[in-house]
């Protein structure tokens, strides 16, 4: 487990979700925490 003792700004990104809507990480700033899950693959 690697809790960050010195938090750094999370790299921003913008991408399309599964419905084709644009998702931008920084849009959540000031509103929600974000849990980013990176998988090997879904299929």
């Amino acid at each position: 487990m690697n809790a960050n003792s010195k938090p750094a700004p999370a790299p921003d990104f913008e991408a399309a979700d599964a419905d084709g809507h644009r998702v931008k990480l920084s849009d959540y700033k000031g509103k929600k925490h974000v849990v980013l899950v990176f998988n090997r693959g879904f299929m």
Partner: protein
Amino acid sequence: MAQLRQDYQEFTGRSAEVIAVGPEGARKFAAWWHKNEMPFVGIADPEHTVAGLYRQQTRLLKLGRMPALMVVDRNGMLRYEHHGDSMADIPGNAFILSLLDRLNQE
């Protein structure tokens, strides 16, 4: 993913959104996402753009990308990161939910 789907309301109840990033192409990814009725945000990342930003590891001998999980707080700060050493090496929901509880107490 099934566990995340089952507990998704626990995450939203802690003012958190879940964004899952997968290596498939957009069409295959969207088909799987809709078939499995995933309730959170899913992003296809076939060019490794987002995964690269967050240093998701690739192991040739383990046939591809390794799992990773990050928590970004509502101030946009990266508060937790975990890079799995095996396909099963991913933090459990209970741990992540407790971390979110701590962030909400700050």
